[in-house]
């Protein structure tokens, strides 16, 4: 496998608006041909970072390189990147074809070439034959495809997408997630997408940078982010999770124990790199907890009394594919457990106020140091 080159290098970039630090000393390399996602809650600086790549904002400090060239002082219309805006920003007074052709016209491409490239681009986003329509005759999903085609037709080194799916309804969004990923695979152009929606990020991305308060909290692939979060923020932001504070009492290469006042002793069958007796946090995903009627639980591969907790069901929500239970533990702490609804017929009905035992495998808990 050949080493992929970074097409965008963000080096120690800081952006301040007055006293507010929107982006705080961020360094990211985005590789050639990857689908990169900037994920974070609103106000975390992800859109500011994207706009700095596009050239609409200038970094207060640091450097942004695109294709190896420093972009300082290069205006948006000179950069080899194109952007799909959150509002799509389709020009309402131009037909679909004219919208897509606009960038080519401005850069002085010959007319016959414009026509073939526009047709190609429209075909690519499945809008073939709709070139003469006006934007107000299109649905929201179609307008977004126009915005996509308008960027792709320029053959940019990088296509930037600002919350591309946020204005679509749930069904269409799920469909577009697949289409976008497939499209990116077909054209081979690097995509950088900003989103606050973790499902969107997980389903489309090669790599995700999770941002929090202007900082990159973690940069990793989707499954790594979910199964190996680096800190409490990422564990909590991606998916659903139960987090307990505890003290690391045993830490050997083959096993570790965290003593958590709220849930008892948590046993892990691997070592943790942390100092003895330090405060750590244990995160357990709701689907990795097994729930049985009270007294039936027996944690396999764990010492007696470890990885087991007893409690009472205080709430449940049936979601169709899974049911999520809220279990109040003996310590008073509530914990979430989810169970897939595997059978249509014999659902072992756990119900409100049932007494239950919970247990989990020693590989399930994630130990977080921060």
């Amino acid at each position, binding site marked *: 496998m050949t080493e992929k080159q970074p097409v965008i290098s963000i080096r120690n970039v800081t952006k301040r608006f007055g006293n507010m630090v929107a982006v705080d000393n961020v360094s990211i390399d985005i590789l050639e041909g990857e689908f990169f996602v900037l994920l974070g809650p609103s106000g975390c600086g992800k859109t500011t970072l994207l706009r700095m790549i*596009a050239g*609409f904002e200038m970094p207060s400090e640091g450097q942004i390189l695109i294709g190896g060239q420093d972009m300082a002082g290069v*205006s948006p*219309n000179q950069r080899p990147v194109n952007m799909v805006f959150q509002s799509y920003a*389709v*020009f309402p007074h131009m037909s679909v074809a004219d919208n897509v052709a*606009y960038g080519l016209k*401005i*850069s002085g491409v010959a007319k016959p070439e414009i026509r073939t490239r526009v047709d190609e681009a429209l075909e690519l986003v499945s809008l073939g034959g709709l070139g003469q329509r006006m934007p107000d005759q299109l649905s929201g999903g179609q307008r977004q495809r126009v915005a996509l085609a308008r960027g792709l037709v320029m053959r940019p080194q990088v296509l930037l997408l600002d919350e591309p799916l946020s204005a679509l309804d749930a069904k269409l969004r799920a469909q577009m997630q697949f289409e976008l990923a497939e499209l990116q695979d077909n054209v081979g152009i690097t995509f950088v997408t900003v989103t606050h929606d973790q499902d969107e990020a997980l389903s489309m991305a090669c790599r995700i940078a999770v941002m929090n308060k202007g900082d990159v909290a973690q940069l990793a692939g989707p499954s790594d982010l979910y199964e190996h979060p680096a800190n409490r923020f990422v564990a909590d932001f991606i998916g659903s999770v139960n987090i307990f504070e505890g003290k690391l009492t045993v830490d050997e290469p083959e096993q570790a124990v965290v003593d958590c006042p709220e849930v008892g002793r948590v046993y892990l069958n691997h070592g943790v790199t942390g100092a003895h007796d330090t405060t750590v946090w244990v995160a357990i995903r709701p689907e990795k907890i097994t729930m049985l009627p009270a007294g039936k639980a027996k944690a396999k591969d764990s010492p007696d009394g470890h990885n087991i907790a007893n409690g009472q069901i205080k709430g449940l929500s049936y979601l169709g594919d899974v049911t999520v239970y809220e279990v109040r533990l003996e310590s008073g702490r509530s914990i979430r457990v989810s169970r897939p609804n595997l059978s249509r017929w014999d659902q072992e009905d756990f119900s409100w106020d049932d007494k239950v035992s919970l247990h989990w495998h020693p590989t399930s808990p994630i130990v977080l140091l921060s």
Partner: protein
Amino acid sequence: MNLFKRAEIAPLEYTRRLWMRAWIAATLFFLYAPLLVLIAFSFNDSKRNIVWRGFTFKYYGKVLENDGLMAALGNSLTIAFLATVFSIILGTLAAVMLWRFRFPGKTAVEGTMALPIVVPEICMGVAMLVFFAKLDWPTDLPWPLNLSAITIAHITFCFPFVAMVVRARLAGFNKEQEEAAKDLGATEWQAFRDVLLPHMKPGIIAGALLAFTLSLDDFVITFFTSGPNTITFPVKVYSMVRFSVTPEVNAASAILIFLTILLTTVALKLQDFTKATA
């Protein structure tokens, strides 16, 4: 069955209620009856405008032969055209400035710009008179330069209207469109020309129509800034009325009405045309 009975009046069917119809009829009557009477009596074959004495076109002929009135009409149209062109440019630029930039004293600028709209016309007229007198503005220039004082006065009260209409239009502009144009390679000027200007166009056209009609029929301010050689159409009509209200005055007014309607229709058609080909 209520086969022969009319359906009951639904809550929103206002036009089927008798009192509503009467109200609409009264409104239309007070709006248009005077105009219709004026136009009708322009065809009256009588020296006085009181009793109907038969149909004639001769007063239209007389109007067209009235050199003073025709010169006044020419002046009015020239002034209106110039005032409109300058108002569009100044008003649009002012609107873009107020929309795009934040600067100290912005509210004050907005306020003073609306001033010509709210200040009583008579005050504006007197102010203009004093202003041009103080400047010793030359009054004996050849046509059309002798219209400069009136034109400047008209621009002063016309361009705020353009600015207001365009400003309102700009409030609905999505700035991402301008950024999208730049992102696709457009320069500042190209983005303005290709994205912002088309968005403002309906506002500019509406503003231009306003400016043109305001300038064309302005009497008070013009009265104070016109000299003996720079009579405009409304001022001329006024001086004719002072002798007697003849059908000639009616005919002249009717011509003005037709002109205004024609211009408005053309402008609206033009707008439709550009929309269809855009």
